[in-house]
């Protein structure tokens, strides 16, 4: 078994070998390297055709029309394009957005930016289980609300939002609905024929495709209009200019095609691996589950080990490539804003770890992970003054800590 074992699939995934094979055909002189915008010769036609096939492969997975897919550099750009694009195009209709406090920074920072541009934003706080209360959405809709943006699957906890219900409200109230589906596509079935979502953002590298490519679904009927954010040659029907990276697009298409073929099988496998891990660690004293297993994408498990700190767990589990719910590993020392918004105590947010699994995770790797989690938690608790106090029956919360 090779270490470190990669258990950070929610951050990114390795590119599938079959995806690489397809991509290689669109790079060199011997391959189809043409510019998809060149209409005057075969090189361009072949490239355009390859892009069209990829658009179909992507649409196949989410049940949309290929013409509803716009390529971007990734989910972040896709989210920016959706939110800013709607707010700018429809600015005469209103300036209010509803989103949630547990969204990805790509949504939150875009909304913050728009607040400087005279937009008003309501950030909904989820229920304790991480789900946005539908009543809260209804309550916060105003006359000038033009957009609701809610993610499908949360990247830290894996919690699934009821986008079906939210879409019905949006349709009824004539509000545009944008969904960040970065973590859900390929893991949870999406049917845009059935669920009336107006805009949906995707990324390729979360489902075994290359980095640097993503897409935005923009509904055609009724036609949704957006203001472009990048201006140039009018590519992607004027909504996103820039020469199409054909090799990345065919890679994304292939990745979506493979995901469609494997979605049921992989879902079952991920469920098994996630449950195996949880069932074998859940008896650790003072462990807290931050993902509701009945309503969480099976590729993510977020737990808190009380009285030990996230970064030190990550250091102890050096044979596992994992990430902390707390942003301790980044330049900020703040614990996870997602967990805090769910009402989880700061201390537990500091102690949280996200394990995420994928196509190449093996059962024996999970078994090894279980073993070293037990050992590391034990070792770190022997080192923890808070654990010592807890064991002596001292209520850590009642101590007057100087902050």
């Amino acid at each position, binding site marked *: 078994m090779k270490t470190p074992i990669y258990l950070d699939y929610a951050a990114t995934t390795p590119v599938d070998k079959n995806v690489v094979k397809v991509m290689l055909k669109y790079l060199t002189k011997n391959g189809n390297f043409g510019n998809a915008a060149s209409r005057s010769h075969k090189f361009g036609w072949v490239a355009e055709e390859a892009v069209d096939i990829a658009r179909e492969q992507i649409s196949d997975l989410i049940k949309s029309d290929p013409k509803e897919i716009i390529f971007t550099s990734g989910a972040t750009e896709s989210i920016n394009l959706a939110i800013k694009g709607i707010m700018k195009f429809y600015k005469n209709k209103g300036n209010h957005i509803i989103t949630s406090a547990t969204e990805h920074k790509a949504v939150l920072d875009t909304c913050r930016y728009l607040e400087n541009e005279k937009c008003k934003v309501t950030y909904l706080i989820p229920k304790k289980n991480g789900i946005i209360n539908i009543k809260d959405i209804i309550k916060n809709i105003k006359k000038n609300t033009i957009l609701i943006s809610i993610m499908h699957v949360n990247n830290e906890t894996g919690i699934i939002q009821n986008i079906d219900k939210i879409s019905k409200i949006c349709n009824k109230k004539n509000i545009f609905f944008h969904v960040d589906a970065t973590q859900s596509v390929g893991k949870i079935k999406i049917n845009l024929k059935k669920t009336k979502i107006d805009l949906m953002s995707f990324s390729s590298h979360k489902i075994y495709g290359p980095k640097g490519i993503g897409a935005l679904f923009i509904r055609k009927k009724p036609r949704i209009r957006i203001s472009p954010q990048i201006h140039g040659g009018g590519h992607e029907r004027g909504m996103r200019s820039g020469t199409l990276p054909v090799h990345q697009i065919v890679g994304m298409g292939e990745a979506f095609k493979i995901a469609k073929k494997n979605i049921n099988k992989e879902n079952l496998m991920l469920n098994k691996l996630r449950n195996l891990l949880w069932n074998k660690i859940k008896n650790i004293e003072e462990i807290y589950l931050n993902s509701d297993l009945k309503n969480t994408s099976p590729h993510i498990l977020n737990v808190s080990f009380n*009285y*030990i*700190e996230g*970064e*030190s767990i990550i*250091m102890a589990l050096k044979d596992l490539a994992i990430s902390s719910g*707390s942003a*301790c*590993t980044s*330049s900020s*020392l703040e*614990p996870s804003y997602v967990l805090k918004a769910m009402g989880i*105590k*700061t*201390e537990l947010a*500091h102690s949280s770890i996200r394990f995420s699994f994928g196509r190449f995770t093996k059962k024996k790797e999970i078994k090894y992970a279980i073993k070293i989690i037990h050992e590391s938690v034990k070792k770190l608790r*022997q*080192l*923890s*003054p*808070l*654990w*010592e106090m807890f064991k002596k029956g001292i209520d*850590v919360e009642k101590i007057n*800590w*100087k*902050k």
Partner: protein
Amino acid sequence: MSYSKEVIDHYENPRNVGSFSTKKKNVGTSLVGAPACGDVMKLQIKVNKHGVIEDACFKTYGCGSAIASSSLMTEWIKGKTLDQAKKIKNTKIVKKLNLPPVKIHCSILAEEAIKNAILDYNKKQKK
């Protein structure tokens, strides 16, 4: 975060982990930091009649640098007089462990911990 060899060594082989009885008159105890901030250090010293720290121990809740800072502190103060120990600056810890700027806070906490342990010891002696 990528740490120096020194931090990793102290983290993997922490020196002087443990607890002394707080009831003993020759023991000074400090508890600094806060769980909500992500760091809590407990540092204890055992002082002999000549005012020399003859033993020290710690327990730390926190990141790798917090654990390393407190572990290193216990090593440094052993055999020192209270006055000498009081003079240990956090910058010395930063240098020795090669702490990244965002983790300087951990060294400050270790300095605070030793000062508070000495304060606690002195308070006990006056009683």
